[in-house]
Structures are given as C-alpha cells and as structure tokens.
C-alpha cells in the first residue's frame, strides 16, 4: 500500500493534480457502475486526476480462492497488463479486490513471465476509502450531510489483509448528521466468501442474517461497506426479506451526502 496525497491545493499554484487510475473491478463494472462513478467523482473532488482503467476485467480472486490458480492467473493477467499501462496509484473501490491485488498477485505470478509486471502493479494498489482518508480536510470543507443512523461493516480482507478499519470510519466522520453506531458484529464475516456463498447458501444466508439482525437491533437505517462483494450479499439478503437496513457502498453514501 502506498499513501497518496493529491494536489488539492492547486489554487495555491504550481502543483498539478496527481493522476490516479481507477480500477472498477468486475462487480463494480457490471453490477454497481453507479457506485464506481460515485467513487470517481469523490476522488475528483479531492483534486485527483482520475483515469478509469480500460481493458482490465477482474483481479482473479474468485478462482484464486477456489484453488484454480492457472485460471486466476489467466484472468488477472489481463488486468495486470492493462494496469501496467497506467500511471500513479491504482485506486480500487473494493476492499477484497484491493487485498487480492496488493497481497496475492505477487505470489500468483511467481515464476511467471509477468511476475515483475505484477509486482510493480501490486505495489501501486490503494483502497478507495484509504485514499479519501488522506483528504479529510477536503471532505470537511464540503459540508456533507446525511441525516440518519449508520453502521459500518468491515470487509474481512480489507480489515485483516490491508488492516484498514479507521480510514473508512474517519471518512464517514466527515458526514454531518450521520450517526455512526458501533456494531458488535462489525468485523464478523457477512457470509459472502465468493464461491462459499453458492456452495453453502443456507449457511451463508444465516451468516448474513446474524449481521443484519445486529444492525437492526441498533436501529441502523443504512449499513455501509467498502466492498461490493459484501454489499451484494447483505443487500441481496435485506432486499429478499423486504427488511431494513439499506446496504450501500461508502462512495454512494458520500454521493448522497452531497459529494458530487
């Protein structure tokens, strides 16, 4: 992980905006494109010159976690090569994909012809909310507001592989009228787990229910995460049961709070 600090103070002259590449990830691209746009705008507001990555598809995580390394490599190679054409930090609005890229690509490509490329690209990966957390002053100045009660759900890999937990909460702390309540189950898995969620649907759903019940018991209107995988799982379950809370990406919350 590399820290970045965009040139938000261009008004003071001389400093051109830092360029960042935005990797939408396959879930973001196909299922949550609006969320990726929200992330894009948020980064832009922070003074970054955001270049969406073209030609990449997926980080390879589904196959990697299922044990299919050659398949994971085949897919990740497309993304590695596309990302190698970009400059600056690679911002990923998905905690577990960011973890896959920065923590597992080097091993996945060990001894491969693209090993060096993968190593270089992996070293440039940063998770979206961690980038915003370096621009809290900008967020504060925007007078963001979202009246309601929120819980934050830690993505397992974002928390345990990237050790990012304070960053998204600090970002949410910049949103006025948003009461962020601590959840007892904040750091417990939502039950997604990639192929696990379709291999053992009953167990997976029971895990989601345990998390959603906790959020409901705290009177949460909105459950926020920085990982589309968790959002798909928790949101899909909440929608099916027709019950609260709403489950949204942190970028979408910021968008609704006025960061546009």
């Amino acid at each position, binding site marked *: 992980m590399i820290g970045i600090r965009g040139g938000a103070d261009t008004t003071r002259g001389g400093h051109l905006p830092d360029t960042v590449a935005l990797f939408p990830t*396959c879930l*973001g*691209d*196909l*299922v*949550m*494109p609006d969320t990726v*746009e929200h992330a894009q705008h948020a980064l832009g507001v922070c003074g970054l010159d955001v*270049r*969406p*990555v*073209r030609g*990449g*598809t997926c980080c390879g995580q*589904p*196959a*990697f*976690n*299922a*044990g*299919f*390394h*050659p*398949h*994971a490599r*085949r*897919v990740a*190679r*497309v993304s590695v090569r*596309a990302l190698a054409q*970009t400059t600056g930090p690679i911002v990923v609005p998905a905690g577990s994909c960011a973890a896959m890229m920065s923590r597992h690509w080097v091993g996945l490509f060990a001894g491969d012809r693209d090993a060096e490329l993968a190593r270089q690209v992996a070293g440039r990966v940063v998770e979206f909310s961690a980038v915003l957390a370096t621009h809290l002053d900008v967020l504060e100045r925007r007078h963001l507001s979202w009246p309601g009660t929120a819980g934050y759900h830690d993505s*397992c*890999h974002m928390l*345990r592989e990237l050790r990012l937990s304070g960053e998204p909460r600090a970002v949410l702390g910049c949103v006025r009228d948003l009461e962020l309540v601590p959840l007892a189950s904040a*750091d*417990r*898995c939502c*039950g*997604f*787990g*990639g192929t*696990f*969620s*379709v*291999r*053992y*649907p*009953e*167990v997976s*759903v*029971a*895990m*989601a229910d*345990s998390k959603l019940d906790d959020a409901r018991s705290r009177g949460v209107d909105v459950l926020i995460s920085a990982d589309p995988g968790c959002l*798909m*799982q928790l949101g*899909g*379950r909440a*929608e*099916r049961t027709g019950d609260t809370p709403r489950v949204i990406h942190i970028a979408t919350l910021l968008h609704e709070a006025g960061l546009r």
Partner: protein
Amino acid sequence: MSEDPLTSSTFAERARVQLAKPFLREAVPRATDIAVRDLRERFAGHDYDGLRELGREIRARTMADLEDALATLTDALVANGIHVHHAADAAAAREHIRRICRESDATRVVKVKSMATEEIALNPALVADGLEVTETDLGEYVVQLDGDRPSHIIAPIIHKTRAEVRETLSRVAGRELPDDASELTDFARERLRDAFMDADVGISGANFGVAETGTIVLVTNEGNGRMCTSMPRIHIALMGIERVIPTLEDLSVMLPLITGAGTGQLITSYVSMLSGPRGEGEPDGPEAMHVVLLDNGRRALLGTEYQEVLHCIRCGACQNVCPVYRQVGGHAYGWVYGGPIGAVLTPLFLGTEAGGELPQASSLCGACDDICPVKIPLHDLLLQLRRTRVDDGAAPWRERLAAELWAWAWSSPRRYRVVTRIGGGVVRVMAAAGLMSSLGPLGRWARGRTIPTPARRPFHSRGERDV
C-alpha cells in the same frame, strides 16, 4: 454413532441439520463470545501479541527438530520411571492402551477430557474389551451418556441446552433432577466421585510434554484431571507427538497462551505437572505411569507446506471466532475437530477422500489467523488445501468447467464485454420471469437472496475513457 458421518453425508447436509436448531445458533455465539471477551479483557494491559509471537517461535523451533525434542522427552520420561510407548497410528495407540489395561487386570477406567482419545476412537475399543469407561469432565460425561460427540474442543456440550443435560442426568438418576445448574453438577460430582474411587486406570491426554524434565502437563478447571491421574493404580497419558515443548521456560509462555485463548483465563483452576508414578515414601499417585506418543499422520506433515498446523495447541479459539462455526457448530464438520482447525486437520489426517470437502466450508474471513495463540496461518492453509484439491484433479467436473468458462470469457476484454452483455440480458429476463432458481450457481444464490441485476450500462460502456 455407529456410521461415520464424514463419509455418509456432506458438510452441507450436516450443516442443514444444525441450522435447524435455533438453540445452537443462540448458544454457540453466546458461549464463544464470552470466551473471546474474557480473553480481551483479562489480557488487557499484558502484551498478548508479544506472547503470541514467543509462542509461535517456540512451536516453530520445536517442529523444526521434532525428533530431537521427542528423543529428549523420551529419555527424561524414562528416567522419571515412566513407560513410553510409540504409536504410529490410531490402531497402534488403542492397542497399547488396551494391552496396558489387560496386563494390569483393570475393569474400570476413568478418563480426563482428551481430543487425542477422541481422535483414536478409544472408548468403543475399551468398552468392547469389557471395560467400564467413565468420562469425568462434566461435559464429556454428558456426551458419553448420550452416545453423542463433543462439538467444541474446550466446551464439548456447547450445543446442548440445560434442559437436555437435565434430561440426560435425570435418566441416570432414575428421578427428576431439578432445573438448576449447580444441583445438576452436584449430582454428576457424586456419581463421578464413585468412579474415581473404584477405577483401576486413569486415562488422560496431554496439553504439553516438557522435554527437559519429562513432565506431562494437564490444564483443567474441574479438578477431575487431578483425580484421574492420582487415584487409580495406573495412569496412561495419550499425547500427540507435536505437543512436546523443550523446556519449563517455554511452558511459562505456552501456559497463559492456552488458557487465555481457550477460556479467557490467565490461568486455569488446575495445572497438573506429572513427572512420574508414586515415588518411594510418597502417600499418593499411581503405581505406574505410561505415556503413549501418537503419530497418526503428524510426522507426514513435517517438511510439507502444512507443517505449521502441527503448532496447534488445541485451544479452540479459532472455533470461537469462526463465523461459520458459530452458525453450524462442531458436528457439521463430521469428525473430531470442528471449525477452522478441523477444516485443515481433517483432510490432512484422514485424507481428502473423507475430509476433502471441509476446506471449502469456510468464507476465508481470516478471523482464525488473528486469534490463534501461536499464529498458525489457517487462512493460507485452507487456500493451499483448496489449491491442492484442484491440482490433484479432485474438483468435480462442474467446478472445473465453470472455472474454464469463466477464465475463457474474463481473460479477454472483448469476450468479457460480449459475454457479460448477453449474460446480463439473460439474467434480467430470467429474473423478471422468476426463473432464477434454474440458473445453476445463481439459482443457489437466489436461495434467500435477490440476485443483483447486471446494469444495462456497465461502467466500461459509459463515455470515452482515454487511458
């Protein structure tokens, strides 16, 4: 249980049975949360993470030269007047213990809670020899009376309600016992007291074997361990060969790690350090003490990518934090060890034929890595087992086909766009027609969750991107 659940059913089937027990999903989280909370609270102000690192170093150093440590342990045990037996597998270990019982004309056996004896399925073998066997840990006693299995390494009846325990003990008592935890305990205590007095042989496991002093260490809270190892004429300790630690100084690190990670205690009520049978002029203790050193698949892991699983000290902490375990309990795992450690150990000990499915039964959240007192990378070991399953061609054809199709479509931006455009349309139509359940993995997803509808305009088709 006569038939082997591991081979006669799948994890999904066993999990479904457990999920249907509302009590389980209430009791297991409650009990495990208390253990984790106590660990955090009681060790606050202590450098627990520093202790974990010391523990990891001790275990790694010992496993790097396990044979040497075992030779030192064996010499020290023998010097202490303890008989040492080596068992290559479960059958050999059972045979050693049966022979010792036979040769000492035993009729009654009392046992301390021991996962190693569960692992070798000792009790049925002893009962078949005509021995009367009594488990003396309260939880294990109830498990035995019910013909059940322990479902947690430390808390064997975590899956039972107090009403169920009362029912079981009332049956033994031949009268209705009151619905009161301490009265139920009192009843069991009286029964067990008789068993201790009458037993010829006491059988225990071993939390640790200290090589330099030839000492078997037992960590318990009920005091039954001390009774079992001091009252009967014979004491037999069954110890997995990996439970050796080199020195007493190492024990000073490992003890708070196992009690903290296991039950959130700085120290347990009883810590027994057994260094031989009754000496001359000593008033109590067994006439003879035996240690059976159990391999049963452990040596085969040395030098492999799975060696670190031998660092395990069976504290149960990974079960306490596992989000899957807290939903389905230990029985869903089908064998002796449940939770993350069970998902790793079972296929390694029993082979992938029987236990190969278990590494899939994890959401790979990594909570086990963060709590493990000796920092075993369980998450990586699960990934490695999954990878080996695929590399060995053991994955079912449906999975292999899905991986092939996915890799083909996703490994070219053009194919990715075309396939997802068509696939997105199909999913939208099927979803609108309510036909999702017929779409393979998506249908399985649709059990309980709505399918996220692919966007009509994916991000890649929005505007000109100039990178």
